[in-house]
């Protein structure tokens, strides 16, 4: 039964995906029913999987090493979240694509990706994870380029390049791990890693580093985040919601496995993860503040939130034995971020369908008369900004608490905690920036006076299914945020066992100690919004306020560093390759020069290129002139020698 459930989750969407083509040929309505129903079936399967926390499935021999799946704990949580997101975007997609051409392709790959993602989350060994991870990378490429605009193709190229390079680096890491341990079974890795002799630890670090690059590329970790701000704005909105909401989590999931199971409390490792996490967190937030494109802002925001999660992953390592708060915070922030991005990106899709623009200047005041969308968007924005009472507050508080706890721990032992105080402040500032850019979006779309020439659009600006999807997402955020003790903590406790969290203790979220952090963050956010965004990033143009793109266009890691470096490497590589490959031909050439001293067939006098005479008739056959012919004669001679010896 459990095995069937897992097989159903992974294989059903993959096998069913080609059905969109014949169904569309029958009628559009049938196809739309299909893409609405199938994810709901999957959601039901995922919900049923909660009942079997120890479900396992082994498929020996498939793909060479055999596939092994397991459910339970964090895996089940991620599977249910993913299925929920798929079901909700499934409700929304037919409306979003109502006037689009060629979306069968999108639906087909949308379902394929769902199966692959299920495989990633349910993988019980790293090989299985890798197989599905690669499938997911390739199938989701189609989402990014679906619109086939110039930018979409370019962003798709970046996405694919990062995915391929990341995937291959991950493969290196896994091969080194396989060589080190002889198995990739996740549950055995921790014991094996601890028993590893010291002289082989270098290989472990190299392998771990490669895995971090591979998973980090998918998660959007600095410095491999380049695809994220480019791919999201160009993808269709339901796809962006999934890309940002759940596909990045597959990378985070991998980072968590590597951090927890291979480098439990390893100091250098956690320092690296923490540093990268902090940079990602701050950089994403800063980019989001500067952006004036709705979906780009949300994409940069995703990057920043992934940074928060990575900080949580590193804090778990620092706190080693007492990591419950960090583990819970990490898990809950993953869950919250998925739901928040579902709500926000689907809202962005609704806005885009009406206005055909994502530039904030074109959207000013569009949502003034749309209370339902306004409310939903507000819940999402408040949640991601960490306003008390919304679910984002809970996870951010837990993450913040874990940093504070480690500072106390260090002070207790009499060590300097300056570095972690800095991390804490950066954490609060990033939280503040989050509040600032979400305010910017909310004010621009729903509060500020209407831009001149903006059509209000139809009264029916979104379909009933879309409002249901948005409503469910927002309700979950609000419900969980108001009852953290009932809903979020049990979830976190269950999911935390996968990360080997201890039992922890109940946190009183609505006490002054914990509210203080949120208040500092929100105060910073208000200051940034009023002083930076309204003063520096906006300009009064006539009677209206205009948003400005102040981020210098040349400051782009991809164009500034990666592309030139790759081009340079390709040049050097090609040069070396040509030198090596010409060795054989060089011999032939030398042979020709030495053995053939005959004059060429045609003479051209020096000062008169119009005049030429043939020294002799040009020969029709070139056979005798080639060195290869001589080589052949040599071979023939050897044959004769053989015959002579034999007879």
């Amino acid at each position, binding site marked *: 039964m459990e095995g069937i459930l897992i097989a159903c989750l992974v294989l059903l969407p993959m096998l069913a995906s080609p059905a969109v083509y014949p169904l569309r040929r029958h009628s559009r309505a049938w196809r739309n029913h299909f893409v609405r129903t199938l994810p709901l079936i999957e959601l039901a399967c995922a919900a049923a999987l909660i009942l079997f926390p120890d479900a396992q499935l082994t498929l020996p*021999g498939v793909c060479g090493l055999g596939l092994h799946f397991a459910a339970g704990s964090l895996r089940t949580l991620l599977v249910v979240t993913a299925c929920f997101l798929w079901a909700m975007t499934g409700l929304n997609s037919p409306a979003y694509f109502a006037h689009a051409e060629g979306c069968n392709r999108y639906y087909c790959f949308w379902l394929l990706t769902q199966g692959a993602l299920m495989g990633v989350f349910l993988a019980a060994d790293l090989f299985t994870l890798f197989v599905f991870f690669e*499938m997911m990378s390739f199938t989701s490429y189609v989402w990014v380029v679906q619109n086939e*605009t110039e930018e979409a193709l370019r962003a798709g190229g970046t996405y694919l390049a990062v995915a*391929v390079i990341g995937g*291959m680096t991950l493969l290196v890491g896994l091969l080194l791990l396989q060589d080190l341990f002889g198995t990739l079974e996740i549950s055995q890795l921790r014991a094996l890693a601890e028993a590893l002799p010291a002289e082989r630890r270098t290989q472990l670090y190299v392998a771990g580093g490669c895995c971090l690059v591979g998973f980090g590329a998918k998660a959007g970790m600095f410095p491999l985040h380049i695809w994220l701000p480019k791919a999201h704005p160009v993808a269709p909105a339901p796809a962006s919601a999934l890309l940002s909401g759940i596909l990045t989590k597959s990378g985070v999931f991998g980072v968590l496995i590597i951090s927890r199971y291979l480098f439990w409390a390893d100091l250098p490792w956690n320092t690296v993860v923490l540093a990268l996490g902090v940079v990602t967190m701050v950089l994403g937030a800063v980019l989001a503040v500067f952006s004036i494109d709705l979906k780009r802002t949300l994409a940069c925001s995703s990057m920043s939130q992934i940074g928060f999660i990575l900080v949580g992953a590193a804090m778990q390592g620092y706190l080693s034995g007492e990591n419950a708060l960090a583990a819970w915070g990490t898990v809950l922030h993953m869950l919250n971020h998925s739901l928040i991005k579902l709500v926000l990106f689907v809202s962005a899709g609704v806005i885009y369908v009406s206005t055909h623009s994502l530039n904030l200047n074109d959207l000013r005041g569009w949502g003034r008369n749309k209370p339902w969308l306004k409310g939903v968007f507000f819940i999402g924005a408040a949640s991601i900004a960490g306003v008390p009472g919304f679910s984002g507050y809970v996870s951010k508080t837990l993450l913040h608490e874990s940093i504070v706890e480690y500072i106390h721990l260090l002070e207790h032992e009499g060590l300097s905690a300056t570095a972690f105080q800095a991390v804490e402040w950066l954490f609060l500032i990033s939280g503040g920036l989050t509040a600032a850019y979400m305010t910017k979006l909310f004010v621009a779309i729903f509060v500020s006076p209407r831009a001149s020439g903006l059509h209000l659009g139809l009264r029916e600006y979104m379909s009933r299914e879309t409002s249901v999807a948005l409503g469910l997402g927002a309700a979950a955020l609000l419900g969980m945020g108001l009852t953290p003790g009932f809903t979020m903590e049990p979830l976190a406790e269950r999911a935390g066992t996968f990360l080997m969290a201890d039992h922890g203790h109940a946190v009183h979220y609505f006490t002054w100690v914990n509210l203080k952090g949120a208040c500092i963050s929100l105060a910073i956010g208000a200051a940034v919004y009023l002083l930076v965004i309204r003063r520096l990033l906006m300009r009064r143009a006539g009677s209206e306020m205009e948003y400005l793109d102040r981020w210098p266009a040349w400051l782009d890691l991809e164009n500034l560093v990666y592309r030139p470096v790759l081009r340079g490497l390709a040049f050097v590589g090609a040069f070396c390759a040509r030198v*090596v490959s010409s060795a*054989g031909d060089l011999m032939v050439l030398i042979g020709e020069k030495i053995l053939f001293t005959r004059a060429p067939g045609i003479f051209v006098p020096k000062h008169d290129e119009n005049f030429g005479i043939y020294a002799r008739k040009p020969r029709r056959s070139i056979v005798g002139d080639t060195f290869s012919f001589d*080589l052949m004669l*040599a071979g023939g001679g050897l044959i004769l020698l*053989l015959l002579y010896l034999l007879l």
Partner: protein
Amino acid sequence: MLLLLPVLLPVIGGVFVFRQKSEQAREHLALALILGTAVLALVVCLLPEQRLDLLTIQSGLRLALRNDSLAKLFLVLVCCIWVPVLIFSFPYIRHAGGERSFMTVYTMTLGVLAGLAMAANFVTMYMFFEMMSLITVPMVLHNGTSAARRAGFKYLGYSVFGAGMALAGYFFIAYYMAAPDFAAGGAIDPVRAAQHRPLLLVIYCLMIVGFGAKAGMVPMQAWLPAAHPVAPAPASAVLSGVITKGGVLAVIRVTYYMFGVDFLQGSWPQYVLLTLALATVFVGSMLAYREKLLKRRLAYSTVSQVSYVLFGLLLLTPEGVQASLLQMVFHALAKDALFLGAGAIIFSTNYLRVDQLRGIGKRMPVTMMCFTLAALSLIGIPPMAGAVSKWYLVSAGLSAPLWGFGIAGLVVLIVSALLTAGYLLPIVTNGFFPGKQFIAERKEMGPQMTGPLIAFAAACLLLGLFPGGLIRWLSQLAGQLFG
């Protein structure tokens, strides 16, 4: 006696193919002959191992055939490729012209390859090897242009010279052989050989470099990128998929059936040849990445991918042999799908350069879908077959006793995989996603062309998902070589 039939039937039948008057009759006869040979070859594979003496030249030297397990593997591979490519070639060659000579040569080559596979000693193998080189030259010369003639003679020169090097080597080592026949695990007399070990190692190195020419190993790889673009697509497909594997087969025979692992393990030729193989892997991929002509790009890709096989073989471990045989099979399938795809594109559009292929996926979706699957397999993306062989190959490298080469192999193979992605994926992505403005008329090829393509692509996928049986067979085979 049955062993001789798969050799003689196509070789003699080829003459009758040539003498047929009508095109239709030629095609039917070629198909019948090749199918018949395939059936006979399968029968030979099912027979218990046996030996057939053809001709005794001198007491110790005779031409003989034997169907050992390596021969069976090679026979199955050749037949599985020969039949679909033949079906593809009917419409293609009708279009390209010169159908009569192509069908004749194509049929006869199968017999020669069967002989090469079943050769029981070096002299027989050498004979069939040279026959293979000679008989495939007309395929390269097919379109008769000056470039084709140059390429043809380059091909012939490199092959004959390479095989000549190997033959010269045989003159030296014949004295040290315990018995003239191939024997799994090595046929060399250890006592006599120990006296002149340094000399024999030089000889070994030269022999492998010589046969390596056929497999496209540096420094004699130059014939491949010259010959493939001028040959018709089905010919490129078999040249790349099967004929280069003839070189690999010869390398296996020399390494494992003549010298033996014990003699070579840890010697300097092993390191030199491993270096050459890795250099070839990189060089091939890098040049393919810079190449603009589709078929030449695929030819460079063959240079690189066949050296993966040589790398695995030269590790001299059972895992290495198993992995490289897997790679040999999977590369043959994927590369044939790619060449047939390129052929279908040329047939339909006459486009030769990669930058012309924008939007080709909208025009020929089935062809390009197969091309995509094969490309993914060649890069090594799971769940395609190539991923399995590459995983095993690198694992074998890492677990081999020569650790430095394991790491070097890992790095080179991954860099090469990235380059493979770099030269194949843009074709696919530009082909399927040409941009909004692009308008293409859908013009798919008929089933005679898409059928074989689908078969190869499906094989890549299915063998990637369920490689268990093949892996078991190959590990059994690899086990024999290490006695």
